[in-house]
């Protein structure tokens, strides 16, 4: 029960934060953070993945509804949701038995940092490539990925450190 509340809180707070606040940031004119990737990072690990994949798709799609972007947020968020397990296996060396007890806050910061940055960069790259929807302007896609990823990561680690201090 506690988990359902946690997940729905995560879902709606990230959705509204992204749509009403972060989509209007436009740092230096065009750089936006896409913090809703945090949904994939914070969602508890489980063997059964249908619900997780579906909720990631739904969160992306809801953001698409608000920002009139077709299905690009749904596509990119679902993609990182699917490949999340691969990176958990590679970076944290976890097997299926460890999923239940896995907690990001108890892992060494270096590994968490790598994991989060990789997910954010992959997500942003797919997002901007799909938004561009052509082979032209590829340098803009790369520049946007770099700037926005930096912005999102900074926001993510700031936010995460605040939450962690509260929990202590």
């Amino acid at each position: 029960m506690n988990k359902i509340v946690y997940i729905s809180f995560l879902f709606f707070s990230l959705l509204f934060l992204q749509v009403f606040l972060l989509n209007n940031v436009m740092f230096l004119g065009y750089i936006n953070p896409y913090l809703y990737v945090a949904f994939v990072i914070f969602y508890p690990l489980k063997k059964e993945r249908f619900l997780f994949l579906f909720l990631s798709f739904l969160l992306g799609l809801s953001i698409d509804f608000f920002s009139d972007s077709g299905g690009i947020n749904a596509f990119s968020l679902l993609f990182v949701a699917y490949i999340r397990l691969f990176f958990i296996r590679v970076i944290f060396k976890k097997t299926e038995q460890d999923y239940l007890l896995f907690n990001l806050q108890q892992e060494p910061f270096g590994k968490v940092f790598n994991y989060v940055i990789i997910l954010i960069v992959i997500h942003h790259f797919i997002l901007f490539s799909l938004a561009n929807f052509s082979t032209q302007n590829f340098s803009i896609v790369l520049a946007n990925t770099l700037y926005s990823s930096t912005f999102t990561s900074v926001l993510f680690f700031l936010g995460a450190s605040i939450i962690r201090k509260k929990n202590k």
Partner: protein
Amino acid sequence: MQQLIYFFRKYKYFLFFLLLEIIALFFTINNNNFHKSKFISSANEITGGFYKKTSKISNYFNLKFQNEELISENEELKNLLEKYISKTDSTVSVSIIDSTLNYQKYTYTKAKVYSNNYHNPNNFILLNKGENQGVNKEMAVVNSKGVIGITEDVSANYARVQSILNSNSKINAKLKNSSHFGTLVWNGKDYNIVQLEDLPRQANMKVGDTIITGGKSIIFPEGILIGTIQKIYTKSSNKFIDIKLFNDMSNIGNVYIITALEKEEIHSLNNTLDE
């Protein structure tokens, strides 16, 4: 059969993932196509309602700018009216107005911008008017400073506008001081700069000239402002120009939707010609 079930069981997550990704890709491709019906659009009651609430708050922050814009528009319109009154002053000249020759071609409806984006390659604007207020697909949207876009998806109370800052936007435009015309497009780089393509080589122009809508399309009336020429370059036999917009597309509040009253007639004429 056994192997098929085993296959599905082994790859069930991957297949589910693939299915959802295909759906998302379908929506994305659909969104890049103007004439197909739209599935994912903010012009629905839920997202429109949320944007209505937030715009009530955010509107307060640029009231000053909006007021200044409206007053300068009023000034312009009053000057136009004065000119018109002095022209038709019957003590100076007698003119007979034949009501069968002069009739209205366009009507304007005011609307408010609920959400506006300008940093994507394909940008859309959400307005607070929809089918219930007489707004349909493919109507022009302008403000006092110039062209904003074309409505492309309409629900009962909201309309989604394809902004001129959209890679699919193609609007007929021409030079103010001659009738050479071209197509207005956007390359997705700077939201203050749009491009005019396919102008004939012999068109005479210089940096700083004004560009207006061409009147070759049924949607836009002729003579709506767009911007001034910033840069001219020639490719093969055509000229291409960069236009600096009069509008600040990142800051628009009140707009007008233009209904072209002759649209049906022109459409039906075109259809009979095709047959």
